[in-house]
Structure formats: structure tokens, C-alpha cells
């Protein structure tokens, strides 16, 4: 947690998120906003370019963007790579034309292995200024990939990573899923081995959650999902395995080699501000939250972002900061938010500490791996005892 605002001005710089809502097919577990096919990509790109231009000049977000440089850019989806390197480069150019990017700004794009196998794909991205790629691998095991609806093979993933590295983008993250159908601890470890062998610098490991309305939700009973206890054990052994291989476990689901944290995402957990463009993209600027509705046509027609209420405050900051391995400092909370924790706090934290759910040194409080697994409840409990 850092001081977010200084008197008279804004200290930390916002990031920009661009949501690219197109995919070649819908994955059975995914509930992100996305449409199948490239039909409206041109209109979409034009609309994003347009919004980037107007949002900073007029409307409710303009104040929060005025005179602020940009520290990170992130293209997420959907499948950004599905719209092609040219379109992505054009969109990044639109960002640069309208905003001042800090020197060395992190610029990430999510890619799917199969759509990035086009020759020259990563070279084009690198030339445009992209310097970080997040690849959706999910699993290196054929049977699991099939269940997850991933069409590319593990070999395709390897080819894509190599191509990316050769093009000069070496900050590469792979996504891995935990608790997917058919998965066992040994199949998970083989996926990890495969990922590490490719020399990537970052891994995101997500526990599968079945979201309402997805295909998995409808087929829940037929999925042959591993038991909850087994999934928890998998998570713990994954954490241990990556640590042994020099990775830092810096957020509940994120691991990196030292110095390769995802800066854009880390800003979310520090409760910093961001601009989101594209249908279903969220913004947090000038202390307020906004979002574009999950509706591509509305976005293309220029519908403005919807106000989603105020953001910030100590509860939000604590809720997010406890996802990080840096945790929270009671002293800092007191200084920044003028919140004095209740006197019973140390005794209660002590109990959680003996149960192995957190570590507490009298000031700094961080969740352990087992604490991360129950973080929804645990964070709620902690906020409850901080409340004076």
C-alpha cells in the first residue's frame, strides 16, 4: 500500500486497460465479455480510438485524466491476438497519440497461442512498442486442454513462446488453471515443468471457479472436477514448487521471477487508478468507478461509461492489499486513513497466526498460502476487527 494522493495533485499515474471482446470460440469456463468472430473488429477499433480521444476531454472521466501521464497499458480480452498484430499496433498508436506514456511503461497484450502463430506476429507487436505478453496456456496436458476447449497443443504454446522471445519480447507470462476436470497433482506439476522449461518470467495460476451461465456451470455435475481438498493441496504444492524454482509468490494467483511483477495488475491491488476502454471495461478515476456496459454495439455507437459509485477508502485498500505478499501495515492504515484498529485485533490475529493463516509482526500483516485459500472470509474477518 502506498500513498495514493498528495495534497494538491495526483501522485500515482493511472494505467490504461483496453478490452478486446473477440474470440475464435467461447471457452466453456469463461464468463468474460466476448463475441465469437471478427465481424465488428473495424468498427470496434474505430470506437476505441474515438473514446481514447474524447474521454480525456469531455465527460465524467476527463477530470481524472487531465495532465496525467500513463504508467502502464494492458490489452485484455477476449483474445486480443485474435484481431491481429496490425490492429493491436494501431490501437496502441492511438493510445500514444492521446496520452503521454512514461518512459519504460509496461505495455502488455494477452495472446492465445494459435492466433499468434502467424509469421511476423510478435515482430509487429515489438515494433509497435509492446514489451510484455501474457499467453493463455491453461494446461500442458492434452486431456485437460481438450476439456477446457483449448484448440492449440502444448507444442503450439512452445512455438509461440519461442517466437515471442525471438522477436525480443522476453517478459512472458503463462496462465495455468488449477482444479480443472481430470487434473491431478502430478499432471499439474508436469504443466509447471513445461512452463518453466520455456523460460518464462511470470506465471498466473488460477483456481477454476465455475461462473454462472457458462457451459461448465450447466454441465457442473458431469465435469469430474477434483475434490476441494485435492484442489487446495494442488495449490499448496504449486506454491512450493514455484518458490523452489526462484519464483516470488507476490499475489494470490501470481508468481514471477524477481523484478518481473505485472505492474499494470499490481496497480489494481494497490487500489490505484486506471482508465478502461471497451465494452465491459471498468475505470477508476478521481475517486469514482465507471464501466462500459457489456454491449459491443452500444460501445460502437458511443454510449458513455456508466457511473459505478465511489471507489477508495480503507476497506477497499485493505481488501486488495491483502492479496499481495506485502500485505498491510497497521501503522500505514492509521496514517493514511486515520483508522485505528480495535484493541482486540492483536489477540484475534494471533489466533489466525497459530492456525497458520497469516503472519503478523505487530505491524505488518500478510496472509500465508493457506490464508490466501480462504481469503474471502479471512479478509472480511480482518476488516471486521480493524473496524474500530
Amino acid at each position, binding site marked *: 500500500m502506498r500513498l495514493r494522493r498528495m495534497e494538491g495533485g495526483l501522485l500515482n499515474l493511472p494505467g490504461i*486497460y483496453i478490452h478486446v471482446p473477440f474470440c475464435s470460440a467461447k471457452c466453456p469456463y469463461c464468463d468474460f465479455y466476448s463475441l465469437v468472430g471478427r465481424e465488428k473488429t473495424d468498427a470496434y477499433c474505430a470506437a476505441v480510438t474515438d473514446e481514447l480521444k474524447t474521454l480525456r476531454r469531455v465527460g465524467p472521466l476527463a477530470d481524472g485524466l487531465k495532465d496525467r501521464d500513463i504508467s502502464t497499458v494492458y490489452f*485484455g480480452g477476449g483474445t486480443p491476438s485474435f484481431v491481429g498484430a496490425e490492429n493491436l499496433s494501431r490501437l496502441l498508436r492511438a493510445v500514444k497519440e492521446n496520452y503521454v506514456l512514461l518512459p519504460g511503461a509496461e505495455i502488455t497484450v494477452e495472446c492465445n497461442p494459435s492466433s499468434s502463430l502467424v509469421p511476423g506476429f510478435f515482430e509487429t507487436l515489438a515494433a509497435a512498442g509492446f514489451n510484455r505478453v501474457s499467453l493463455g496456456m491453461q494446461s500442458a496436458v492434452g486431456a485437460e486442454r481438450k476439456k477446457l476447449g483449448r484448440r492449440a497443443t502444448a507444442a503450439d504454446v512452445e512455438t509461440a513462446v519461442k517466437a515471442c522471445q525471438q522477436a525480443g519480447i522476453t517478459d512472458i507470462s503463462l496462465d495455468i488453471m488449477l482444479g480443472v476436470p481430470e487434473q491431478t497433482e502430478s499432471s499439474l506439476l508436469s504443466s509447471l515443468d513445461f512452463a518453466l522449461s520455456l523460460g518464462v518470467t511470470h506465471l498466473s495460476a*488460477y*483456481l*477454476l*471457479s465455475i461462473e454462472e451461465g457458462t457451459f461448465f456451470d450447466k454441465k457442473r455435475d458431469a465435469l469430474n472436477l477434483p475434490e*476441494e*481438498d485435492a*484442489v*487446495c493441496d494442488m495449490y499448496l504444492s504449486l506454491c512450493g514448487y514455484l518458490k523452489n524454482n526462484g519464483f516470488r509468490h507476490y499475489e*494470490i*494467483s501470481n508468481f514471477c521471477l524477481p523484478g518481473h511483477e505485472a505492474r499494470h*495488475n499490481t496497480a*489494481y*491491488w494497490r487500489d490505484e487508478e*486506471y482508465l*478502461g476502454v471497451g465494452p*465491459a*471495461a*471498468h*475505470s*477508476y478515476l478521481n475517486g469514482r*468507478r465507471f*464501466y462500459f456496459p457489456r454491449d459491443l454495439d452500444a460501445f460502437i455507437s458511443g454510449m458513455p461509461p456508466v457511473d*459505478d*459509485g465511489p*471507489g477508495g477508502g480503507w*476497506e*477497499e485498500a485493505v*481488501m*486488495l492489499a491483502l*492479496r499481495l505478499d506485502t500485505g498491510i501495515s497497521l501503522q500505514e492504515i492509521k496514517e493514511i486513513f486515520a483508522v485505528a484498529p480495535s484493541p482486540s485485533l492483536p489477540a484475534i490475529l494471533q*489466533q*489466525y497466526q497459530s*492456525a497458520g*493463516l497469516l503472519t503478523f509482526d505487530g505491524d505488518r500483516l500478510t496472509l500465508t498460502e493457506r490464508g*490466501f*485459500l*480462504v*481469503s*474471502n*472470509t*479471512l*479478509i*472480511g*474477518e480482518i*476488516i*471486521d476487527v480493524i473496524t474500530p
Partner: protein
Amino acid sequence: MRQKKEHIRNFSIIAHIDHGKSTLADRLLELTDSVAKRDMQQQLLDNMELEKERGITIKARAVTLDYKAHDGNTYELNLIDTPGHVDFNYEVSRSLAACDGAILIVDATQGVEAQTLANTYLALEHDLELVPVINKIDLPAADPDRVCADVEEIIGLDCEDAPRISAKTGQNVEAVLEKIVRDIPCPEGDDDAPFKALVFDSVYDNYKGVIVYVRVMDGTLRSGDTMKMMATGATFTVVEVGHMRAMSLENTGVLKAGEVGYITASIKSVSEARVGDTVTKVGNEAAEPLPGYKKVNPMVFCGLYPADGADYEALKEALEKLQLNDAALSFEPETSGALGFGFRCGFLGLLHLEIIQERLEREYDLDLVSTVPSVVYKIHLSDGRVVEIDNPTNYPDPAVIDYVEEPMADAHIYSPPEYIGVIMALCQDRRGTLKDQQYISSDRVDIHYKLPLNEIIYDFFDALKSRTRGYASFDYELCGYERSNLVKLDVLLNGDLIDALSYIIHSEKAYPRARKIAEKLKDNIPRQMFEIPVQIAIGGKVIARETIKAMRKDVLAKCYGGDITRKKKLLEKQKEGKKRMRQFGTVEVPQEAFMAILKLDDQT
């Protein structure tokens, strides 16, 4: 001089629950123009919201109707309504003592039921003239001929010219009024004798103080007289006397022998003018009170605690207000290690308990946690002392107990014969002793059991209804104490005794019950950050044990820009959920877990 009061009739209506008592009362009010049509709400006499909803009368009320009969005379008809539930038997008996006759309503589709009989016997004990009325003849399933035969056979009442009516549609209701005038005897009394009036109800009013409802036996009382309550000796100056009209009180300034009316005298609480007491007049005092007064004692006790400790004062005030109007409700402060500050409350029975609880929650907007209801046990200690306890928490150490006595109930269950088997199984399971079994007609059997009161206070009636598909009816009265082999079950969560869940039970049932309580707690307490042992113990000995495993996985794996609002909402929901939890040491117990233990039905 003793004289007949030719133009007065004092009567009540008795019936089994739902046989149409209140509906008939409404029709009588309408027919005698006591209420303008536009003021007519359904079931006017039941004026508590809860009564309307449950369709039962909780408190007695009375009303004076003027009826111009076919003989050309105008009669003063005093209708005294009676509560319709076994919990309020004493109040019923006092209301009946104020009457000279009663209308017995029997449902033409259902015939004679448990309370039909119980109320008939009560009425006969008071020498009341009974006027049978067959109701609900408009229903397709009505069989008035059969029901008349039933009444003649079972009760021995001649039904040949019993009015057959539909109180709902109003069909033939006039005949009931004529029957009242013709068949119910008029009261007798001496206007000059020492004043003597029976209190059959009393109601607290914010402006007038207690309104005392009386039946005058002898003498005359006027405003300004000094009255005296014979049981308590308290005296008051009479402010108003008069008749109860359907919509208001009519201050007539005088009440005479034979009449039914009200008195106000700036009385502060109904406990000073209890049902059954005798009012007399200072200066012309009665030598003896009327017979039959008793102070009703609560039979069923439970702890009531505010779900939010901050509501303690509000709960206290609410109980005080309810007590102004309900002399049978008792309460005293109690502290529970588990539930904090609350009150030990005493009730006439389970219905009374439920009604009070519901009124507290609805009318006073209180969120309550209640403990398992208990009866009053007599504990004979080894040193010869006898203590009465109504709270399992106070149960003495078994080492100092010589023996324990529990209250018994004499119960009659009326049912179609095909359910005899399941009813006996139920009663047997509830430690009942079969006393007698009698066919009162070809399709109705009276099963007579002696049952421990603690086996029937909670869910007996529900269990009976569900096993007999609603066909059986049930009535009981207390019949003293009997020696019994009882033990106290204690519940420990994470090693801490949860006093509010302690339970007194017959030793033979202790083990299965303990296992069930442990299971229910395990199922109803959500997994928490720590593993929680659930233990059920007698004395220091654990007889059942379960473990609530620690929560392992509750995590939002992805939390990026768009997920933050979602995560915040989740946190809010969590906070809401916590409000419904009770904290016991480190363990959070949802109120549902308490309810689950209370509703421990033996069929599940």
C-alpha cells in the same frame, strides 16, 4: 330482593378451532346493527392482528348487543368471547362462569372435535344451557345430518331444532338469535345485595388505565363508588361503568345485578385486576368472594434474548408493555454466557410463547433468539430440600440430586381410527402411558394418554398433525408431578459450554438425542477458519461428538479492474451474514442452528 332479569341474556360461543366462532360473532353484530356495515372488518371481535392471521382468539372480549326479538321485546344480549386454545383454559373457564348459556358451534363438515368436547365439558361444569348450532352448511362437504347425529350420540345434546347456518354467508343466522332469547335462561340477582362481580377479562388502555370486564352477580355499582379487588385487597375509585359496544365503550354510570359491563378506575396494571378475581364495593362489601379464583402460573419457560445486544432495553420495555395486558406472562432478567443479557420468560403454554414472541418481533420490531423451552422441574436434593427449576442452566450437579419430578399432562387425542397406530407410536415415543381408548362414534376414537409435559410442549402438536394428515385433534390438562429419570445435556463448541443450548431430557433418550444435536449443529454451523469440535455431554462425560472441519477454500482467484466492485459487494454480503451470527468464543453460530435444534423432530 332476588329477581329475574327477563331482558338480559349472557352467553358465549364455544367451538373447536376454525369451526367458525368469530365469523358467527361478526354476523350477530351485523344483524343487531351493532356495527355499521362500513366499519365491519372481518372478525371484529378478534382485534389483534395476530389473532386475525392465526384465526384464533387469544384474549376474551365481550360486547353488548340490542336485539328486538320476534316476541316484540328488546333484549340486551351480552356475548362473551372465549379464547380458543388449551393454553388459555383458565380464561375460558372464567368467561364461562360469567355466562348463563353457550352456543356450541359444530362444523358441518368436520363434526365433533377435541375442543368441541373439552369446551362442552367446561360449559357443563358451569351449568350452562347449551345451544347447538351446525355451521358451514354452505360447504359442499357439509353433512349436517351426520354431524347432528354425532352431537346427539357423543355429547347427548338434542339437535332436532339446532339452527343449521352458514356464518360465512349469513344464511339462517337470525335463528341463532331467537334460540338465544328462547333457550338461554335469563340471569337472576339482587340489585340491593352487597356488590359482587366476576372479572372475566381485563385490558390495559393507554388513556383509561385497566378496563375491567365483569359480570355482576349481585348489587349495584356506580361511578364514584369505591371498589375493592377481593383477592388483592386493593381499592380504587370507580371512574366509569357501562356497557361494551362493538365500536366503543358506553358509559352508563351504573351496573346492576345480572349485567355484563366494564369498570375503569385508574388501575395501572392488569395484574391488579386479574381474571377470576371478585370486585366488591366498599361500604356494602360482599362477605365471600366468588368461587374459582386462581392465579395462573406459567407452565413453559424459555430465555428470550435480543439478537442485537443493544436492543436489551427495547426488549425490556416491550415485555413490560405486553405484561400490562397479560397477567400470565412473567419475565425476569437472565444472563447467558452464550447469548448475553436477556430475560427468562414464563408462558401458559407453547402457543402463548409463540404469540408473545411473534408480537415482540412484529409489533416491537425486535430480532430475538430464544432458547429451548423448558417446563418446571422439582428437584429433590439429597439434603432434603426441594428446588424448582425452569432453566436447564440452573440444573444442580447430579451428585447432589436425590430424585427429580416432572410435570405430567392428561391428554386426549381424538382421531379417525385408522391413525390409532401412528398416534400410539408417537405417544409411546414421547414416554406416554395409555390410559384408555374409546370409540366415541364409528369413525372417531378417543385415545387417552398420560404424557410428560416436556414431551408435548415443543413440537408434539405439529408431529401429531403431520402424522394424521391433520385429522387428529388434541387437548390436555395438567395432572401433577411424577418421579422421572432425567439428565441434563450440555453442548460444547470448541470446548466452550453453550449454556443456551442445554437441554433436560429423559435418560433413555439422551444418547440418540445427543447424537442428533451434534449432527444438526455440524450441518448448520458453516465451516469456519478453524476446526471446531462439537461435543454433547452429561455432567463431564462426552456422549456424542462431531467435528466441523475448517474451511479450506473460499477465494476469488482473479481480482482485476472489473472485479473490485464485485469483490466489495461480496464483502458487504459477508458482513450482512455475520449479523445473523452469534459469536461464542471463537465460534460463530447462525440463528438457524438454534432453530434447527429447537425443531429437532424425531422423524428426521
